[in-house]
Every structure is written in structure tokens, then in C-alpha cells.
């Protein structure tokens, strides 16, 4: 189960958090400067348009004169050209920053994900990570890039309008601005409520998706249990909630707009009343009155925008927190600076300094516990000679996988040490060990791409004939050339276009090509047909030859061929020896063997 629940956003605005995020903006200083200028220009032009109307009224209409109309036209034309260019620049540059930010944060996140150790993956669901890397980061890019410029625009606009208004007539300016504080308070209040209520809608929506998912996946069960009515009733409870929360959210937003409009009209009304009297007493011009009326309407836009951005920032804070927590997680397992100096890091490995691996592995008084204190191994000792094949058997949770993960340095011992060729593996680089490792899961994992690309994953600089040879060694060549596009066949997402047996063979070829010194096989429990099993068995034998191997074994044929079999129960070796020896002990292995023998033979008889 994931330890990360979708946490509610904190009430407080966390400045430190945003500052850390803003570091990602550093490479965009130039863009931000342009944006700053553009946005100020934009706000400026938005303020100037009503002034033009004022000018037209005061200089052409009221005095009934056409002097300077051409000049006026010219200025207007220049302004709209500037406006068009500025709008273009605004969207294009802000878009550039938005996408660039997303790109940078994603890149950083992905790099970190490549470094984090398995203990992190063990307790973090892939879905959670996916959500951070996709939607959360998109939201951050959006909020930061557009939010920032909208914020600048809003402030500039407000300042510019206020400035012009005071310049035109400070008394009228003061009067018309009286409604602004109320507007700010109401906007903040509503925007927060609105965003929060839409958040609830989204949550309910994902529950509906979940309910549909369950309804469809569980339809067969529903039928057999005759649960249709009850299910519909339960579903209706959620749809009712959805209806309620959506309508509530809609009502909130439909209340907000009228509230703002009314406040705005009060501003206009005040201007009309006092400004009108000003005109009547010749204190101000017609044009000034008209400009003021326009400004009172215009003023509300930036206030609304700012309130919205502020509310959005608060909501995005949860995304920011989650994403940064992922990026800033330190990997449990990493090379010390001295080791990196000697053997290189992930990006610049100094392969010339790497010692050759023979394949002797020993566990010395190894203990391992998860961070939450759950002990898996205690004082575990094991010596494996180079080239030996070890089969580990036992129930799920007995500690087999932990042993293998420790041997591969996917986990590190909490106590004790693990030696490879006599040296504690922490004194060598991670990459060195992993480059000498072959790991095959019988629920094989392939990547989208062609068969050739998937095999080449074992050794990137392999030549085509080496790839073919690897495929031949594991008997995959024949089925591959039988496919329409041969080695160039697309395997589909996760290898979905191939059968499990075919995927296994390709993952074997991939491992063979890597030519590892240490080999790990994690066998699946699922049954496969006899013919495939025979082919796979041969492939496994080929792979094990001359390599130190660990097999988490389920199938008798694999177990029997091991040099040593170990029965693991609760983190301890309870039985150890070869197949014959263990049978004679008539213990757990004996029972396992007899049961498995019957299962496999029965399955064989029944699969035609």
C-alpha cells in the first residue's frame, strides 16, 4: 500500500517551497525580461485605449472639429499593431517558459527516479509517480509561467489605471476606487471557495471513474451474486454526491460574477453621479467622464485575475510539495565521492578502472530491515562460489527476494557486509556491479520498440549478428524470423503483441547478449504449456552455464538442475543441499516437491 495519501493542501502559503521551485526559472531570465516588458506594454496599451476615446470625444466630437484626425488614426494604427505583436509575444514567450519549465522539472525528476533505490519503489506506487511526473508538473509549469505573467499584468494594470485616474482627476479617482477594497475581499473569498469546491468535484469524479471501473470489471461477479440493484443504489449515492457538489460549485461561481458586476456598477454609478456633476459644473470634461466610466469597468478584470491566481497558487502548492519531495528524495544506495572519483558515476563511468568480476559472493552476518523496522533477514550467512547455481525456494514473504535484491545491491545490508570476489561491494561502484549482472523475470518486461531494440538493450553496441546469435542460443531465432517483420517487429506497449513465452525468450536473449557474470532468475508461478516450458528450460540452462546464478525457483525442472537448493523460511535457511539430499530429509522440500510434481503432471495431462 502506498504510504503517500493524497494530502490536502496546507492552509499557509509556503514561501520557502515556492522559492525552491522558482530556482527552475533561472535559465529563463532572458525570457522573463522580455515577458516583463511585454506585459507592462500590454497593460499600458489596455490603459491607453479608453484615453483615445477620451481624446476623440474632447478634441473631435465636443468641439466639432476634425483637426488632427489623421494623426489620431495613425497613432491608433500604430497602437493596434503594437498590441497584436505584444499579444503574440506574450503568448509565445510565456508558452516557451511554461513548456521549458515542465521539460526541466520532468528531466530532473526522471533523473532522480533513475537513482532512487528499490526501497523507494517498494513503497511508492507507479501510479503515484506517474501522476507527479505528468499532471502535477504540467500544473506547476502552467501556474508558474502564466500565473506569474498574469500577476505582473494585473499589478501593472491596476497601477497604471490608478495612476491615470489620479492624473485625470484625483477626487473622482478616490470616489471610484472606494469599491475596490470590498472587491478584493469578496474576490479572495469567492475564488478560494470556488476552487475548493471544484476540487471536491474532481475528487468525486475520480470516484465515479473508480465505480465504473469496478462495475465493469466486476460485472460477472455482480451477476452471479445478483447484486445489480444494490450496486446501482451504491452508484446512485456517488452520482448524487457528484450532482450536489457540481451544482454547488456552479452556484458559487454564478454568484461571484453578479457580485463583481454589481460592485463594478456601483463604481460606475458613483462616477456618473459625481463625475456628472463635475461636468455640469465644468470641473471636468466629457472625455474624462467617459474615460472614468471605462476604467471603472476595466479595473475589475485585474482584481479578479489576481484573486484567481492567488487561489490557484494555493492549490498548486500541493502539487509543488509532492513533486519537490520526489525530486529531493536522496537515494538510499549511492556511491561515496571517493568511489565516484575512482570508478566514475552514472554519466561518466571510468570503465578502465573496473576490476573484472569472477563471481564469488558471500553474505557475512547480513541483516536487513525495512525503514519501518520490519525485519526480514538477521545474521544471514551464505557463500557462493563462482559459477555455482543456487535455487531459493520458500513461500511468498519468506525473504527469497530480499536475498536476491541484496546480492544485486538493489538493497544494502543494514548490518553485516556482502563481498564480491572478497571485497565489500560498497567499495566498488554500483554501475560496475550492475554492468556485470543479468536479471530475468519470468513475467518479462519489454519496452515498446522492435524485437531487435529489445534484445540490444542487453548490450547497446552489439552488432546485428551478435543479436541473432543471442536469439539463436535461446531458441528465439526461429519464432522471430517467422514473424512478418522478423527482428523489426514492433512488440507493442509492454510487449503486448507477443505471447508470454515469446516475451520470455526475448528477455533471455537480452540477458545472454549482456554476457553477465552474475545471473538472477525470478521464476513466475503461472503455468505454461509443456512445449514452451521445454524450450525455456533449455534456454535457462544455456544462460546459467559458467555464471554465478541465483534462481527464485518454482518449477521442478529448474530447481532440480541447481547445484544447491535452499529452503528459506522467515529469513533463515531451514534446509540446504542438492535435490537428492533434500528429498531424503523428508521435510518442507519433500512436501513441496511432491505437490509440485502432481500439479505439473496434472497440468501436462490436461493441456492439449
Amino acid at each position: 500500500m502506498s504510504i503517500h495519501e493524497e494530502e490536502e493542501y496546507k492552509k499557509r502559503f509556503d514561501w520557502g517551497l515556492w522559492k525552491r521551485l522558482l530556482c527552475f526559472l533561472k535559465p529563463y531570465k532572458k525570457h522573463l525580461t522580455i515577458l516583463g516588458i511585454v506585459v507592462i506594454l500590454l497593460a499600458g496599451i489596455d490603459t491607453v485605449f479608453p484615453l483615445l476615446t477620451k481624446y476623440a470625444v474632447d478634441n473631435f466630437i465636443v468641439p466639432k472639429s476634425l483637426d488632427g484626425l489623421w494623426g489620431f488614426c495613425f497613432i491608433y494604427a500604430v497602437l493596434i499593431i503594437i498590441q497584436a505583436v505584444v499579444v503574440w509575444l506574450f503568448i509565445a514567450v510565456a508558452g516557451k517558459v511554461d513548456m521549458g519549465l515542465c521539460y526541466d522539472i520532468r528531466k530532473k525528476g526522471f533523473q532522480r527516479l533513475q537513482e532512487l533505490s528499490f526501497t523507494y519503489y517498494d513503497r511508492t506506487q507507479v501510479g503515484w509517480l506517474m501522476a507527479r511526473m505528468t499532471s502535477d508538473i504540467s500544473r506547476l509549469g502552467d501556474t508558474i509561467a502564466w500565473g506569474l505573467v498574469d500577476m505582473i499584468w494585473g499589478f501593472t494594470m491596476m497601477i497604471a489605471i490608478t495612476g491615470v485616474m489620479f492624473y485625470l482627476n484625483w477626487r473622482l479617482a478616490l470616489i471610484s476606487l472606494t469599491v475596490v477594497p470590498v472587491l478584493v475581499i469578496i474576490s479572495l473569498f469567492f475564488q478560494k471557495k470556488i476552487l475548493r469546491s471544484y476540487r471536491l468535484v474532481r475528487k468525486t469524479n475520480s470516484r465515479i471513474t473508480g465505480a465504473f471501473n469496478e462495475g465493469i470489471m466486476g460485472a460477472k461477479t455482480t451477476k452471479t451474486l445478483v447484486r445489480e440493484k444494490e450496486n446501482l443504489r451504491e452508484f446512485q449515492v456517488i452520482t448524487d454526491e457528484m450532482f450536489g457538489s457540481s451544482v454547488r460549485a456552479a452556484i458559487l461561481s454564478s454568484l461571484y460574477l453578479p457580485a463583481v458586476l454589481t460592485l463594478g456598477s456601483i463604481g460606475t454609478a458613483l462616477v456618473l453621479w459625481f463625475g456628472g456633476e463635475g461636468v455640469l459644473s465644468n470641473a471636468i470634461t466629457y472625455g474624462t467622464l467617459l474615460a472614468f466610466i471605462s476604467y471603472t469597468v476595466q479595473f475589475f478584470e485585474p482584481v479578479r485575475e489576481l484573486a484567481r491566481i492567488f487561489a490557484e497558487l494555493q492549490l498548486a502548492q500541493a502539487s509543488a510539495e509532492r513533486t519537490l519531495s520526489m525530486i529531493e528524495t536522496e537515494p538510499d544506495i549511492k556511491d561515496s565521492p571517493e568511489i565516484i572519483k575512482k570508478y566514475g558515476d552514472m554519466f561518466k563511468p571510468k570503465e578502465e578502472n573496473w576490476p573484472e568480476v569472477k563471481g564469488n559472493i558471500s553474505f557475512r552476518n547480513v541483516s536487513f530491515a525495512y525503514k519501518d523496522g520490519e525485519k526480514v533477514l538477521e545474521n544471514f550467512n551464505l557463500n557462493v562460489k563462482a559459477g555455482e547455481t543456487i535455487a531459493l525456494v520458500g513461500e511468498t514473504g519468506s525473504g527469497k527476494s530480499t536475498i536476491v535484491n541484496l546480492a544485486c545491491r538493489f538493497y544494502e545490508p543494514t548490518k553485516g557486509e556482502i563481498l564480491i570476489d572478497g571485497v565489500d561491494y560498497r567499495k566498488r561502484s554500483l554501475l560496475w556491479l550492475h554492468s556485470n549482472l543479468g536479471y530475468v523475470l519470468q513475467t518479462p518486461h519489454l519496452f515498446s520498440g522492435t524485437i531487435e531494440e529489445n534484445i540490444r538493450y542487453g548490450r547497446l553496441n552489439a552488432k546485428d549478428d551478435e543479436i541473432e546469435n543471442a536469439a539463436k542460443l535461446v531458441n528465439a531465432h526461429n519464432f522471430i524470423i517467422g514473424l512478418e517483420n522478423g527482428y523489426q517487429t514492433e512488440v507493442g506497449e509492454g510487449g503486448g503483441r507477443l505471447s508470454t513465452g515469446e516475451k520470455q525468450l526475448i528477455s533471455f536473449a537480452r540477458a545472454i547478449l549482456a554476457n553477465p557474470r552474475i545471473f538472477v532468475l525470478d521464476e513466475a508461478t503461472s503455468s505454461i504449456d509443456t512445449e514452451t516450458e521445454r524450450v525455456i528450460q533449455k534456454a535457462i540452462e544455456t544462460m546459467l552455464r559458467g555464471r554465478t546464478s541465483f534462481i527464485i525457483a518454482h518449477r521442478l525442472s529448474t530447481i532440480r538442475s541447481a547445484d544447491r537448493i535452499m529452503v528459506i523460511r522467515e529469513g533463515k535457511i531451514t534446509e540446504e543441499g542438492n535435490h537428492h539430499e533434500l528429498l531424503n530429509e523428508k521435510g518442507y522440500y519433500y512436501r513441496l516437491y511432491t505437490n509440485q510434481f502432481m500439479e505439473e503432471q496434472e497440468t501436462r495431462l490436461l493441456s492439449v
Partner: protein
Amino acid sequence: MLYKLRLLWNFMRGSKSLYTGAIFAVGLATLFSLVIPLVLRVMIDSVIGNEPIHMPGRLISVIQTLGGRSVLTKNLWIGSLLIVALTLLRGLFLFLKGKWSAVASESTARNIRERLYDHLQHLPYDYHVKAKTGDLIQRCTSDLNTIRRFLAVQFIEVGRAIFMVGAVLPIMLILNIQMTLISTAVIPIIFSFAFIFFIKVRRAFQISDEAEGRLSTVLQENLTGVRVVRAFARQTFEIDKFDNINCEFRDLTYRLIWLLAWYWSISDFICLIQIGAVLVLGAYWASKGMISLGTFFVFSSYVWMLLWPVRQMGRILTDLGKTLVSVGRIQEVLTEPIEDKKVSAHKPRISGEVEFRNVSFGYENGKHILKNISFRAKKGQTIAILGPTGSGKSSLVHLLPGLYDYQSGSIKLDGMELKGLDKKWLRQNIGIVLQEPFLFSKTVKDNIALAKKGVEEAEIFEAASIAAVHDVIQGFEKGYETPVGERGVTLSGGQKQRVAIARTLVRDYPILIFDDSLSAVDVETDAAIRKALKERSHKATTFIISHRINTLSEADKILVLENGELVQSGTHNELVRQEGLYRKIWSLQNELEEELEHEIEEEKQLI
């Protein structure tokens, strides 16, 4: 197109008055928003200025009774208050529009949702065997959302645009024809520009979405394959791969933004030319005295008001296209024929006698899965079924609860023909544990309690004990309150299967079916479950599909199926004397013993 529009219209049923109300509300709100500049015009021209009042006679007489223009001029607050009042009215109608359109569209969405959900539940078993879950969920959620959004926002917007044009044009025409022409000149241009642009840009949206899809795939494959990546030390390779797609996604999405930048700047440009034309020509005519200052003001306000909905229209039309596609996809699901269910009031007590006589069954394509099956099961007997994969074992037991319908022959339950019985009633009397059990995301306890309303805790514990899962559950941190399924703990295959068995045992079904459901639990647990079942006071007629010799040998009757035919049937003692599959399975036991002896011999020789 027309057909789909009619479908959309049908979906709106039940809330049509609300939709109409919302459209009228938005219309009225629009009218009020148009009146406000008119009031301002009168105020500016005739109250503050000296122009004669241009308005319908009746309104003038209203002003006269108030005391005429001079009163208004002395008390400017009256006009100001009028503006606030008009805005309040406008706000009121905007609010009503928001509320009504939300209630209408949300109830439409709720109706479709519930219809879809219930329809899916009632589709035949076979449909769900073949269903593509991802696609169905897509239809039930995002397609539905497309429709909902269109109805809530765009549909009403169309109403607003129509009202706007319908009201603004006459007012403008009354005020001044030339100015009207100038103010509306670019509308066709901007409308076609918006429409064409959004059609063209749809492709760019799609391309960006696809790139995002690829980005997710690379990410997903990397994260789920993290073991492979590490074991081959391919981190830098993966980083490069991700970087490529990350770049691609960035560039393609940026291209979209870039296109939008062109759209907004060009359409802003066109709109500003329009506004500029109104400004300059208006000023020109006003200075010549051909129009009043107020008229000038009205036009310069209306121009802004007209342009926005026009720019929106292009978008709405493209959205309508998307919506109709979604309507079609949802309708496809809703027109799938549902399971044919006999509903009859006759609900006899079922004791558990089963008789198959010459039963044949095949799926639509005419291939026979079961051929001429005949056998009898007496009340309380255990019938074991054995056969190779694809021999029809599962189909045979699926016929009993009516999950599939047999084409010929007859199945009798307590002497009554199965086809004549109410299917729900039938299923309430036949418990079946499916091969791949599904647990709902509820607690373990609620999952076990599913089949029986008002079940007591003791009964749940008892059922769990029989299914050999009681101790396992109590070992969980939260015991029976442990949530399972999507958001809960992951149970192993065997544990899931046992919870599913417990769920079935909670009800005292006269007939029980285990569709190969014990093969996921180990041999010892299998035996324990069967033993506990036997010791139950109430004994059900039980069908067990299995390949385990122990399970089979204990049955009262064993049926052996091959290629849809019943090739052997009888008790253990009868079948071991006949050549056949059963004997082969049975002799495995001997083979095992020989094998073990052989292994031990070998070992001795080695020594």
C-alpha cells in the same frame, strides 16, 4: 449528423424546461447588459448634456411624471441608481442561468451515467467476458464529460449569442444604419477565421496529445521495468530516451501554443481594427453632428460586446463536432442488447436436484462447445468435473445459473425446466465461485457480506473459517476491516480466491459451483476447505471443476469431458477400472512414488 443531434436532444429529456429557462435567463441578462449603455447614453447626452431625449414616448412620459429632465439633472443619483439596479437584475439572471444550466446539465449527466451503469450491469455474461474495459470506461467518463460540458457551457452560450445579435442589431439599426454597418463589418471575417482556425488546430491538439501519450508510455515502462533498467545498468540510456520524448512533447505542445499565439494576436488585431473604425468614423460623424455623443458611446460599447461571442462561436462549432462523436460512442453502449431475463412471479423453493438431458451449447458462431450432455445429480451430491483445457467444463457449469443459454436439450432443476425460471431467482439459489474472482474495493468484511443482506458477524466468521481464510484475515493489521481492491491491500491469488469462496458460503445456496476456484490455493488448504464443506450441517449439491486427484476421488460422481462430450462418468472405483483421462491422472500418484524411489536409489548409487 441529424440523427446524432436528435440523440443529444433525447439525452436532454427531463430537463428541457431548465435548459429553456437558462437560455431565457441568459437572454434577459444580455438584454439588461445592453440597456445599461443606453441608460448611460441618455444620461450623458440629455441629462448631463443638452441633447433632446431619443427614446420611446412612453418612457419619456415616465420621465415627465418624475419631474422631467431637470429633476434628473439635479439628482444624478437617480440615474446612477438605475444603473446599479439594472446591473443587479442582470446579475440575478446571470445567476439563474448559471444555476439552471448547472442543474440541467448535471442531471442530464447523472441520468446518462446511471443509465450506462445499469445497462452495463445487465449486459449478458458473454459481453463482459469479451469487454474492453479501458474503452468502456473512456466512454462512460470522458465522453460523458464532453457532452456535459457542451450542455452546461456552449449550448447556453449559443443562446446568448443569438439573443445578443437579435437584440443588438435592431437597437444599432434604430440608432444609426451607417454606424451599424461599420460596427459589424468584420464579424463574418472573424467568425470564419475562428471557425477555420479551430478546425485546423484540432490536428495540432491531437498531435500534442499523442506525444503526451508516448511520454506516459516511456515513463510507465521505465517505472514498471525499473528492475530491468537497473539490472542492465541502462540508466543513462533511459535518461536519453526520456529526454528525446520529453523534448518532442515540449516542442509539439509549444507549437500548439505558438499557433494559439497567432490566433489571438490576429483576431485581436482584426477586432481592434473594427473598434478603431467605430472610434474614428464615429468621432467623424459625431463632430459633423450626424450622431450624438451618446450614440457614439453606445456603439463603442456594443462593438466590444458583439465581438466576444463571435470569437467564441468558432470554438463552439468545433466543440459541437466533438460532442456529437461522444454522443455516438455512448449510444453504441446503450444500444447493446441486454440479457434476456425471464421475470416470473413463480419462485419455487429449490432443493438441488439437477438433471441434464441431451444438452448442447455453442456460442454465436455455431461451433458446439457442449454436445449432448446427459447426467443426473441428486440433492446433496458432489459432482467433480475433469477435462483438458477447452473441453467445455466451465461452459457446463455456467449454464446452471443461466450465465449462458443452452440451445437444445433440457436442464431440469427439481424437475422444472431451467429456461422457465426467473434468472435472478435462479442465481439467488446457485452459488458460483468464478475462476478469476473479483473483489470490490470495500473492506474484507463487506466483501464477504455482499450476497446476503443483514448478515451477522458470526455468519461471516463461519464462512471465512470454512474457506480457511479466517486466520489470514485476523492476521491483517485491521482484521476484517482491512480494505481490499484498488485502494486497499493486495491479496495474493489464493487469498482472493478464499475470500470469494467465503463470500459464496455466507448464503446457504442449495447448489454450489466451484469453477476451478480451488486450484489457486495449495493442496493442503484445498483439502481443508473441502473437509469443512462436508461437515456443514446444510449440504448443498456441489459441482467442482478440478484436476487434483484427491478432490476428484472424493466426489460422488466424476464427469470427464473431452471436446465438449461427456466421455466418462462414474465413481472413483468405476473410473479407475476404465482406460481414460481419469486413470491417467490417478496413476500419477504411483508415478510420483516411483519417481521418488528412483531419485533416492540414484542418490544411494552416488554414495
